């Protein structure tokens, strides 16, 4: 089973839920941290990293000996990533989406592909928990191809927990698509509700069953619960604001380890997901 943990709004507690759920289960579980722009799960899981792999995406390289400046590469490129100017071809590699169109269209076979670094994937484990995350190179704009690479490490024999990025655009879709269940973590505030509605919209487009965790459930108003009821989205867990939890989190510690009474609650959360997703 694949559970993707998403939110719409940032900072609602996705990583807290993903890591504490994984540690509560303890074994036969993997975390894929797909928030490759700002991955944080490793700060809590503290895995031993065993493999580091640099991920690249193909971008064009032009052999000016062969190029006759016909300009077809610039015509096919939708991303303005290659253009013929005067007596030369200028590739803007950071804009390239790696579609291969320029190489395919070049009548002189003057274009080959080289790699642009997207970032790295690090893999490791902590006890019975497998750990994989992507780290986008600072300055790189495109996260979805790196997210897709992280997801290639999905182990179908065990439970996969995906820590998704905030928002509802392409990186989030890349982190939710193909999941069996989406767990949406929100807070009961106007910002939380507004962004939750967008996230529920995205989940509906992908036709994945979903449920809600309301974090800091006593700070705000009752509009999130009202919305959940109207939309028939089950509330699977509530985490009240507790300064101790906030402090535990701030130090990079796990709630279920410092406050063991929470382990049972995270296991209950998993069982309610199992019932809905299967």
């Amino acid at each position, binding site marked *: 089973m694949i559970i993707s943990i998403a939110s719409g709004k940032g900072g609602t507690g996705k990583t807290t839920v993903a890591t504490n759920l994984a540690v509560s289960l303890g074994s036969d579980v993997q975390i894929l941290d797909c928030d490759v722009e700002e991955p944080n799960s490793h700060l809590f899981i503290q895995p031993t990293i065993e493999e580091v792999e640099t991920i690249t995406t193909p971008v064009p390289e032009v052999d000016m000996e062969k190029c006759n400046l016909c300009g077809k590469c610039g015509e096919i490129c939708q991303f303005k990533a290659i253009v013929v100017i005067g007596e030369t071809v200028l590739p803007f590699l950071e804009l390239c989406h790696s579609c291969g*169109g320029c190489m395919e269209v070049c009548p002189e076979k003057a274009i080959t592909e080289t790699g642009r670094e997207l970032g790295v994937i690090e893999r490791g484990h902590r006890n019975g928990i497998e750990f994989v995350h992507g780290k986008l190179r600072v300055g790189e704009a495109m996260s979805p191809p790196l997210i897709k690479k992280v997801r290639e490490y999905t182990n179908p024999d065990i439970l996969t927990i995906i820590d998704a990025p905030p928002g509802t655009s392409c990186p989030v879709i890349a982190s939710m698509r193909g999941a069996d269940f989406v767990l949406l973590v929100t807070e009961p505030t106007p910002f939380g509700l*507004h962004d939750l509605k967008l996230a529920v919209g995205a989940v509906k487009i992908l036709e994945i069953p979903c449920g809600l965790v309301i974090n800091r459930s006593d700070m705000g108003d009752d509009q999130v619960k009202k919305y959940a009821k109207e939309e028939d989205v089950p509330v699977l867990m509530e985490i009240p604001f507790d300064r101790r939890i906030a402090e535990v989190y*701030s130090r990079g510690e796990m709630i279920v380890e410092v406050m063991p009474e929470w382990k049972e609650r995270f296991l209950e959360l998993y069982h309610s997901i199992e019932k809905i997703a299967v």
Partner: protein
Amino acid sequence: MKEIVIISGKGGTGKTSIVAAFASLAENKALCDADVDAADLHLIMDPEIKERHDFESGRTAIINQDKCTECGICRDLCRWDAISADFVVDSIECEGCGVCYYFCPEEAIDFPLNTCGEWYLSDTRFGPMAHARLGIAEENSGKLVSLIRQEGKKLAEEKNLDLLLTDGPPGIGCPVIASLGGAASVLIVSEPTVSGRHDMERVAELAAFFNIPAMLCVNKFDLNPEQGKAIEAFAREKNIGVIGRVPFDPAFTKAMVQGKTIVEFDGRSEGCEAVKTIWKELAQGLEI
């Protein structure tokens, strides 16, 4: 006219609440919400929309089944596996590269422009505002961010305003990169947690990569003063101006629930006092 962009790396550190407070404190400014993916500033600014425009960007391939001979060239060329065995394009996977459209020997593929959001020019009780809404599950958020910042700048210049206050997106990817170019400065709003620190370091590196001067404030500082000080020390090392600390104050949430800035909600709250000090420092730093 100067633009200050408020970013954070990590989401949920309080960017929008702090931008809203600045909106209450600053004079002669326009506002811009560049977090187009999950825009929230309008929930406090309560804008009266004066102009509404479609945001058109990117294209998606559509195969015309009547013309398609199922030769398979498009499937071979598509690097996104977006074309199914029965030759239907999955619009979510389609990258909009147009390679299938270009090479289809039967001209059986259409490649129309997408409408993937809306953008607005509005009036608010704090001045004019440019904001946008990216459609759910859409791409091209970076382009919409660039567009809305351009519109924000135009608003400010037309009305002879000194400042554009831009609420930026979380992360360090495409929309954040699009929110940095040409900014006078960025203010990084961090929080004193291991995540806040980790993410602040990455977004600070990004600002440096694009040569944008940065300033820092740490929100909810008292949750973990040690961590807060470590973040400030890192900032100083990187020549990032440390311009203040905001205490954890439930008044921010209470203000948000009422659709108010913290300055409007409780001008004497600890949070408000802290934001006032930060605003003063910021205004001095920007020479406005």
